[in-house]
């Protein structure tokens, strides 16, 4: 090992060691890398002036259009959370299914799936579920282990359920790596892999996971009914048609929003950013309607206007500024402008409502801070990557991966194991920003490694390590909000069946890449 390789290795060791101290990750990455750049200059291994590439890289992050989707998706989730839609859903679904043995656990899983799809940030989902679902299950006599395992596993689905934040970031990084890998192979019109591809790739594996969770819960209900008893019927609770109406009321709006957002991305109608903005906008409308039901007329107007625009778009050609527009088209364009004005009025009223009810400001603050946290890590990781590359670390990793026994499978396996272990101590964001740019280009250059498959494998791998005792971050989040009668050991034991399901799914995905690649290919028409 020469001096450059030694320094590159020491850089990784130093970062890992310093991270343990607990100073924010973004600055630990950046600060340590800077120190090694100075060391590299002093020993003549790398030029310090190489860091002149840092400001253009940061500017690249600032002007990256793919990453615009991040704050918009987070805002959508935070707004839905503040509207207390999750509580209401859980209550009504619990009433609907709770009188079956195991029904409450199944309701929690289904609500968790919706919430995970809406929020896309694990910590937030697990905390919300832990505060709402866990006490509900315990109150009705559920086994604390089953209850804790269910909440932890479904909350962690936010890692992989589209439109997960993790998939947006992973898609962006993988695309860069994929381009680099193809250029290195002399392919000068490289293929792209998009965030939408990763979303589509995640659909089947994520739904399969949910199906297996449900199967496990039904199995427990059949074999050990006392672990998940049916809820006793409350005397004044609605039943029959009234219950179905309540359920429809609670379910239809958020479900429709998620379907519109995901459907438009998967169907190729909208970019993730466009869909995320519409999703955040819809979440504001829904929240305003719930926060002030007596003043919901403007919101109803806005929703009707949006529906009207959709209809009009289908029956007439609304493109403005055409010379050959018929009288019918002109009239339709005029009508469209009226509807747009109505939509704008409704939107303004909705924003005013959520601001007046003091829902908007905290939601904006929370979203802004999560966004700033993610992007600051990205900036710190950019510095790290520059120095690591400057010291020749990239070539070192590439040679090491190429020399492994077992070829492609060996290289992939070692990367997966490393990411799994890193997942215990680091957030998915850091791993994606630091590890993926280093390992993905050599992996994607190997034969038979599809970028979507690799991305979904990585996402599910990180998701599993998030859940794995004793260090999985989900378990810490849940520990923080769980009632005292749930012991840490209950959480550890409770998640084991779910971790086994996850690992099983990873193995299946390893041998059946089609689970991830089939839907994106189908949607791309290939």
């Amino acid at each position, binding site marked *: 090992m020469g001096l450059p390789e030694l320094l590159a290795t020491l850089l990784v060791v130093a970062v890992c060691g310093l991270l*343990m*101290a*607990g*100073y*924010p*990750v*973004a*600055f630990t990455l*950046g*600060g*340590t*890398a*800077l*120190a090694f750049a100075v060391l590299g200059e002093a020993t003549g291994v790398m030029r310090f002036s190489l*860091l002149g590439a*840092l*400001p253009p890289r*940061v*500017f690249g992050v*600032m*002007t990256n*259009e793919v*990453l615009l989707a991040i*704050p*918009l998706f987070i*805002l959508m989730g935070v707004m839905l959370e503040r509207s207390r839609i999750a509580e209401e859903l859980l209550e009504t679904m619990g009433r609907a299914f709770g009188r079956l043995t195991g029904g409450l656990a199944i309701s929690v899983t289904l609500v968790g799936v919706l919430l995970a799809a809406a929020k896309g940030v694990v910590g*937030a989902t697990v905390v919300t579920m832990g505060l709402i679902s866990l006490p509900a299950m315990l109150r009705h006599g559920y086994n604390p282990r089953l209850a804790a395992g269910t909440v932890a596993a479904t909350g962690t689905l936010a890692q992989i359920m589209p439109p997960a934040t993790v998939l947006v970031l992973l898609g962006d990084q993988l695309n860069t790596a994929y381009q680099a890998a193809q250029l290195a192979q002399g392919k000068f019109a490289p293929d792209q892999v998009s965030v939408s591809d990763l979303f589509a790739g995640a659909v089947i594996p994520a739904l399969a996971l949910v199906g297996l969770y449900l199967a496990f819960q039904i199995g427990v209900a059949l074999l050990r009914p006392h672990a998940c008893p049916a809820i006793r019927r409350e005397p004044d609770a609605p039943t029959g048609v009234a219950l179905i109406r309540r359920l429809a009321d609670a379910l239809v709006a958020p479900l429709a929003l998620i379907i519109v957002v995901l459907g438009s991305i998967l169907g190729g109608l909208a970019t993730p950013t*466009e869909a995320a903005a519409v999703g*955040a*906008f819809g979440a*504001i409308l829904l929240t305003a309607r719930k926060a002030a039901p007596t003043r919901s007329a403007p919101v109803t107007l806005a929703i009707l206007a949006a529906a009207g*625009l959709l209809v*009009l778009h289908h029956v007439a050609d*609304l*493109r*403005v*500024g055409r010379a050959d527009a018929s009288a019918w088209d002109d009239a339709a*364009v005029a009508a*469209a402008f009226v509807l*747009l004005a109505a939509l704008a009025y409704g*939107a303004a009223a909705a924003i005013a409502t959520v601001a007046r009810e003091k829902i*908007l*400001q905290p939601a*904006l603050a*929370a979203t*802004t*801070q*999560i*966004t*700033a*946290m*993610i*992007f*600051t890590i990205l900036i710190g990781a950019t*510095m790290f990557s520059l120095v690591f590359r400057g010291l020749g670390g990239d070539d070192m990793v590439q040679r090491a991966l190429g020399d492994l026994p077992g070829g492609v499978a060996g290289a992939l396996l070692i990367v997966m194991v490393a990411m799994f272990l890193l997942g215990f*101590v680091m*957030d998915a964001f*850091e791993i994606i920003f630091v590890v993926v740019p280093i390992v993905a280009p050599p992996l994607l250059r190997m034969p038979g490694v599809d970028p979507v498959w690799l991305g979904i494998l990585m996402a599910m791998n990180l998701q599993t390590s998030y859940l794995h005792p004793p*260090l999985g971050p989900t378990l*810490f989040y849940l520990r923080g909000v769980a009632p005292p009668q749930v012991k840490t050991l209950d959480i550890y034991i409770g998640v084991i069946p779910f971790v086994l399901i996850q690992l099983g799914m990873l193995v299946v995905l390893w041998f059946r890449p089609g689970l991830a690649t089939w839907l994106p290919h189908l949607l791309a028409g290939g």
Partner: protein
Amino acid sequence: MVDRLAAIAAGIDRFNAAIGRTVTWCLIGMVIVQVAVVLMRYVLGIGSIWLSETILYAHATLFMGAAAWTLQARGHVRVDIFYADAAPRTRALVDLAGALFLLLPFIGGLAWFALPYVTRSWAILEHSPEASGLPLVFLLKTLILLFALLLGLQGIAQAARAWLTLVGAAPAPAPRPHH
């Protein structure tokens, strides 16, 4: 000395919190403008590079302007396996050493390389590469220096507060971020 240091830290906190709270409104601007762009494109068939770039500018302002406020609110992720359960003095020591030896050098290095980069952009009042784009790229690039300045200030406040904790003149920082 102790009082002056506490006053400086409190002043920096107020300054960065004011900027952070202000830039949160960029978010609602992003939503409105992006929805407007979607409606214009899909309904009326008109596109606007100018409006699309406005969204990028709002996004960059959001996270570059709020990073320091996020540090103040303890919103930056830490590996808190040991930190969360550490004694208050240990946490203060980590914050002090981290601010002095990790954050401030990193921010200083970024500012050192960003300064000529931003100055070059100002010298030509750099325009968007798109003909009909915003002519304000030099302002967008200046955000890198603003990011460094605000974070540098907040790092000084963090170090000051940690030092005050170590000498017993201030309460310990909270172990966990709160979001």
